[in-house]
């Protein structure tokens, strides 16, 4: 059975049609899926409907066999622990250290009091250390996050998601504020996570060439509709034009380059 399944998901903001229009797809364990599309196409909304940070207006979403729309507050918290999320602006608590931010990923498993006091057990701490080491942040572990570079901050974001022991990680424009170097490091880490840990990665991207290079599968969204769903090698110039509209001259060039190389 698919790990994540969306059936006819629709979202309207303020009764206006339609941030998402009848979106259906399913994603398997360990898949690396990129969602591409122009700004305002509904990529962020789509991602946030999966962990119910945004409530879908209609349709059904099931994560790991659990239908999310009908869950109580407590069960929704439990479901969210299985879904990590990383953000364009990293969304860390800047005044806290790397290790503290990473351990925030464990809060979903905590009772109110333990979470409020920030009490983490030895196992959780050593897991956090291990993940920080994998992401190459050993030297920054006790640094405050406002002293880190963008790429380092994003790796802290990834660590916070990983420490949740998630089945899925949702990435909302993870490299949109990073330079090419840092972007490559982040994308490589995400690919390793999906290949080696078997965690499903769903990532919103602006860069088509990055999506082509890293994904197992690409979903193209325009005006809330899925207009392409398939392997990167099946993505043709015509389909890119469908996704982005007529202003896709540059993108076509990049696609040509891929075929050349």
């Amino acid at each position, binding site marked *: 059975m698919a790990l994540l399944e969306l059936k006819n998901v629709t979202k309207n903001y303020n009764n206006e049609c339609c941030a998402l229009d009848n979106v259906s797809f399913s994603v398997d364990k360990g898949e690396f899926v990129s969602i591409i599309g122009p700004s305002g196409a509904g990529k962020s909304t789509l991602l946030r409907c999966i962990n119910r940070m945004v409530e879908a207006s209609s349709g059904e979403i099931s994560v790991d066999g659990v239908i999310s729309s009908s869950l109580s507050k407590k069960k929704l918290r439990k479901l*969210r622990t299985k879904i990590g999320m990383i953000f364009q602006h990293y*969304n860390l608590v800047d005044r806290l250290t790397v290790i503290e931010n990473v351990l925030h990923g464990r*809060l979903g498993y905590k009772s*109110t009091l333990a979470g*409020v006091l920030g009490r983490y057990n030895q196992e959780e701490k050593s897991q956090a250390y291990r993940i920080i080491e994998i992401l190459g942040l050993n030297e920054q572990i006790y640094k405050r996050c406002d002293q880190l570079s963008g790429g380092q901050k994003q790796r802290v974001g990834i660590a916070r998601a990983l420490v949740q022991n998630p089945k899925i990680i949702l990435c909302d424009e993870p490299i949109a504020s990073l330079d090419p170097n840092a972007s490559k490091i982040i994308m490589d880490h995400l690919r390793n996570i999906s290949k080696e840990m078997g965690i499903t990665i769903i990532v919103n991207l602006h860069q088509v060439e990055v999506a082509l290079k890293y994904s197992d599968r690409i979903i193209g969204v325009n005006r809330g509709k899925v207009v392409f769903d398939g392997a990167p090698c099946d993505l043709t110039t015509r389909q890119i034009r469908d996704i982005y509209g007529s202003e896709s001259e540059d993108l076509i060039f990049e696609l040509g380059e891929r075929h050349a190389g």
Partner: protein
Amino acid sequence: MRDDIFTKRRNGNLVFFLALLILSVGSIIITEYDVIKGFTSITKAVIWGGSNFYPDAESLRILPEIFPKLQETVLMSIAATTVAAVLALVLSLAGSQTTRINRIFSIVSRGIASLFRNIPIVAWAMVLMISFSQSPLTGYLAIFFGSLGFLTRAFMETIDEVGNNSIEALQATGASYFHIIFQAVLPASMPQMISWLLYMIETNIRDATLVGVLTGTGIGFSFDLYYKRFDYHAASLVVLLIVITVIVIELVSNNVRRVIL
């Protein structure tokens, strides 16, 4: 078209300054304020102050009397301000856009904040004097209410400034409301809040002197007493002590600020 904008702006400025001029000349005429006499009498006041309003050797005898009074005023201000800060923290969490539980709580706490903020401390003291007569409690409560309004407002802005990003991230991990408050909102906004608290303590020590004149307690009352007895040397000693105290408190809190920010 472009000329039009510049002419408009110039005319607007002209009208504004003309209105200001009419307003100030009008007020001078209506109140029969003699501008020249007003300024020349400043020198007279300085001369009088220089020859009478200074502490002499004899006035030092009152030191043992006024030190406990000074201490009372300072400690009462600190007590009133810190207790007000605790309550203001709760109100500001309920009132802030990012951490509010629902609209009604938010409106109520914003309402309390602006009501208490917009009544001057001196007015509070006078109103409270009816219930509590001339006692330290009156002064304590006056400062408490005044600080509560101001601090709630300041804390609310601080929380709003911290913003939604880290809150969103923690929600996505499955953290509960109180987890988010204690692990993200408070760590991020605490230094700014402490800075506001220190500022409030500084102003309150100054205001407490004035309130003391009204309520007949603390250092303000001592000043009032000596002044009305025409013991200008003693009165000036009181003023000098207040100035020194305020400067010392300001230096201390500046140092604290430098460490925490």
